[in-house]
């Protein structure tokens, strides 16, 4: 569902008119209700949202299925460097600024999807994992594999605040990539790492130290926000 909102343009004064200026989120979740909720939440932030219901479909959308068909995940890094990956669809006009995926899905899990994405040409795209269960070891595992954020379900409007840095950073990236300079890109990546580490360390520590029973979950989340 695409919600084109001209208010979005006020965040991108420097962008030249281009086919896809809107912040584009790829949402992966097998639950119909959660996809609908995510769409509505992100629409409120003026994002374009593409929803798919499985990790396989997400990989297909990103054009990653063919190159990894014959390889195991452990060799995915090698295969992506030996055979040039399908050009990140920027040339085809598809750009993804953020991937949000559920952890628990039939077939490919969100963690597996994360690994595949981080081992591909899409590795610079931030990946956010969502889960209804607060399992500290799961959270650490995802963050270590390169997930930028781990959000507890059900998602709320306040969770979008955690995503704001990515909305803004991506716009900076787009502006700077316009001048086509790879050194600037790596500089941005460094900045991303610093910002993300701060966020991730502080958030993950809180979650690791205080695993709350399911129904108590929303209260500790409020505390986390207050500290941030």
């Amino acid at each position: 569902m695409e919600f084109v909102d001209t208010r979005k343009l006020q965040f991108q004064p420097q962008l030249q008119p281009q086919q896809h200026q809107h912040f584009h989120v790829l949402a992966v979740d097998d639950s119909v209700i959660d996809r609908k909720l995510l769409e509505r939440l992100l629409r409120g932030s003026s994002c374009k949202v593409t929803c798919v219901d499985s990790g396989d479909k997400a990989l297909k959308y990103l054009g990653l299925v063919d190159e990894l068909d014959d390889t195991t995940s452990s060799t995915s890094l090698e295969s992506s460097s030996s055979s040039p990956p399908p050009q990140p669809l920027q040339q085809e006009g598809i750009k993804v600024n953020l991937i949000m995926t559920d952890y628990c899905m039939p077939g490919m899990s969100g963690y597996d999807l994360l690994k595949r994405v981080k081992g591909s040409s899409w590795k610079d795209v931030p990946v956010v994992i969502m889960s209804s269960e607060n399992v500290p070891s799961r959270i650490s595992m995802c963050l270590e594999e390169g997930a930028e954020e781990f959000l507890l379900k059900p998602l709320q409007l306040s969770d979008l605040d955690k995503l704001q840095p990515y909305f803004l950073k991506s716009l900076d990236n787009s502006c700077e990539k316009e001048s086509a300079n790879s050194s600037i890109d790596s500089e941005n990546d460094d900045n991303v790492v610093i910002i993300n580490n701060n966020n991730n360390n502080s958030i993950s520590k809180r979650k690791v130290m205080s695993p709350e029973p399911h129904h108590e979950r929303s209260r500790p989340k409020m505390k986390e926000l207050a500290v941030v």
Partner: protein
Amino acid sequence: MLGFGADLLWADMNRLLAFLFHQGVLDEQFLQLQQLQDEASPNFVSEVLNIYFHESEKLLTNLRGLLMERDYKKMGVHLNQFMGSSSSIGAKRVTNVCVAFRAATLQTNRAGCLRALEMLEHEYCYLKNKLHQLFQIEQQRALVAGVRYPVQNQNQ
């Protein structure tokens, strides 16, 4: 007169909501749903709930069949889905029964599963009835509020 009616209905709705919160039937996630309803998504809550009802009834039917077949693993998978969607709409009691039910499947405790399934069906039915009640009040309130304005114009 009609304005008075709308206010009474609004009070009824809030009383029912407060009751449901107090009983732990609903939690703050339900409020979140309501907050997501706006002019661009005027029927958001009812759309989400209709998806939920449709999905839940299928899940319950499947669960009964799987219990007869003693397929505890598949029951666990269904329960994960049921838990997820119930939690996403703020159906706290239903979610909690799913958690207990899932524990019973992990223990392959057939009697426990049977009890849990009955409880789940009961809680789900209760939730559905209460939510329908809520919607009825809301619809009446919208009707009454809609009629009020032409009457006021005539009085002027």
